[in-house]
């Protein structure tokens, strides 16, 4: 589970432009991760077991973890990073995989992507690191605990693909998989007492340098002002059709 800026946040860049300005940001759980957590909770309600939340990031991530615990996760592991560590998706996946290995698993659920950097790689890379089958962009999931297999529907462009895989596996969640529950007040209060195990990044012994480095960040150029067509409706319509064809290339 990743903590990301609320999508309504106005993004500003830090001087040097390799990171965004994090002051004043409202942080939330990555929405796709909420689908993943909700699915885990439903599976637990159906089959029993335990839902363990694994999150990675600085101390502020604790709030997202508490939120996840308030939704119903049983306990959590927080891989605590600091500003000095330079991360990329590969390193993050290595760290998460290591925690998963320590904790044990029947199924690993992640969001299909994080809405901040949109890389969509962490789930798949965790699967690679653990040598597990992966099923991505899942909109429906059924588990058969007896045969230890899963059946999933994946959303493709204009089609649904149905796949099967043995457990354990990694599944990444797409919108539509479920409707995440509200954290209720009794659960929020209970979450205070649930265990959060903190693992310092340094203790994982991941010395490797990141494979991918951010060179620079820049904000998208300001959108050009809209063109407003006025005058005779018939002429305006003709002009609109011409612009859509010749300038926008959409018809």
């Amino acid at each position: 589970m990743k903590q990301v800026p609320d999508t309504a946040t106005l993004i500003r860049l830090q001087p040097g432009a390799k990171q965004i300005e994090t002051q004043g940001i409202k942080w939330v759980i990555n929405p796709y991760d909420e689908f993943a957590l909700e699915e885990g909770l439903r599976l637990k309600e159906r089959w029993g077991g335990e839902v363990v939340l694994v999150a990675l990031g600085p101390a502020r991530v604790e709030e997202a973890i508490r939120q996840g615990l308030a939704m119903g996760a049983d306990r959590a592991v927080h891989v605590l990073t600091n500003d000095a560590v330079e991360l990329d998706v590969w390193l993050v996946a290595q760290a998460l995989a290591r925690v998963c290995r320590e904790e044990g698993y029947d199924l690993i659920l992640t969001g299909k992507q994080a809405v901040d950097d949109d890389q969509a790689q962490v789930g798949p890379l965790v699967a690679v690191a653990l040598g597990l089958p992966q099923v991505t962009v899942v909109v429906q999931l059924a588990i058969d605990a007896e045969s230890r297999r899963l059946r999933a529907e994946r959303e493709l462009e204009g089609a649904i693909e149905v796949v099967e895989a043995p457990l354990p596996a990694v599944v990444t969640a797409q919108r539509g998989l479920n409707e995440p529950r509200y954290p209720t007040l009794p659960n929020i209060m209970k979450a205070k007492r649930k265990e959060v195990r903190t693992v310092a990044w340094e203790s994982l012994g991941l010395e490797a340098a990141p494979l991918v480095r951010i060179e620079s960040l820049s904000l998208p150029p300001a959108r050009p002002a809209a063109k407003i067509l006025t005058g005779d409706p018939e002429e305006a319509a003709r002009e609109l059709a011409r612009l859509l064809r010749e300038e926008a290339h959409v018809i």
Partner: protein
Amino acid sequence: MTINDFFDLERWLSPEERQIRDAVRQFVEAEVRPHAGRWWQEGRFPSELIGPLGELGVFGPTLPEEYGGAGVSGVAYGLMMQELERGDSGLRSFASVQSGLSMYAIYRYGSERQKAEYLPRMARGEVIGCFGLTEPDAGSDPGAMRTVAHKVAGGYRLHGAKRWITNGNLAQVAVIWAKDDEGVVRGFLVPTNAPGFSAREIHTKASMRMSVTSELYLDQVEVGEEAVLPGAHGLSAPLSCLTQARFGIAFGTVGAALDCLEEALEYAKTRIAFGRPIAATQLVQERVVDMLSRVVAMQLRALQLGRLYDQGALHYPQVSLAKRDNARAALEVARMARELLGGNGISVDYAAMRHLANLETVDTYEGTYEIHTLIVGRALTGENAF
């Protein structure tokens, strides 16, 4: 520095308080806001939300877990009321009457048996309560009540009428305040299906249209000893319940005002007149700043009230001043929002007029503006001017 929290009070909230506030906000955004205007116009309380609200935990949240509560702080309770009232004052009224008035009366003055029987079910929303203090001829002066509880073998016989009772037609149990043979005010838990008890909904309201308000008739209603709240002797008992509910109103009104402010600001930025957004005119900017200024004052009052509550250091004149000033300030904010929205401002397609009409009730119930002025005035001068 956001419009919702200009003075960044968020920093003084605990993570649980923030989470609880956000959980209720999320619920209200999804389940209430899209329908609020229509429900209000139809004069309909969404009773289908009672179960989900119970699950969310908004009924009696400050009570201990053994009674179905969650032992949350007063600030958290207040913030829940704020978020409910952002949706509609009627929704918050429902919760206030259930929690602050009915459940609190049972928790504070009830026997162990009454608490065990009612509170957990009321927390889940399975049993709805109402609180019958006001009468047709006794509002600001509840000591003038005429409802009597005559001692009979094995219990009491209640006779009288109550008016303006929120949840009256929804309730399974009514907390009824009546004078015994000695003229002492006592509290009774009256099942609303008791012979002689009837409720009639008041349908002529131009305010709080999403809330159920009723007249209650008690025609020689007989109840057993087990219906008496053993701890309640005298008018101070119902008044202490009112202090709880007034506390919730001090926070709730912030929600209504915030909703008005947000709506007005958004409107000001997008409504074009004389070729530019009305937000680009000095008069409109003054108006939104005036609204914000009131909202910030309301938020500061409410939060400090909550902190005092949590430290057990709250005095009732403080609650009175906060109820008085926050209800009035919210009313002013709603009125300014209504005005800023022009013709659209009078439509229930927007929230301002609905909040404005609701807040007229909020300004009056739980002690009118004048009555709180007199409470605080007495505390200041030592002179009783009622």
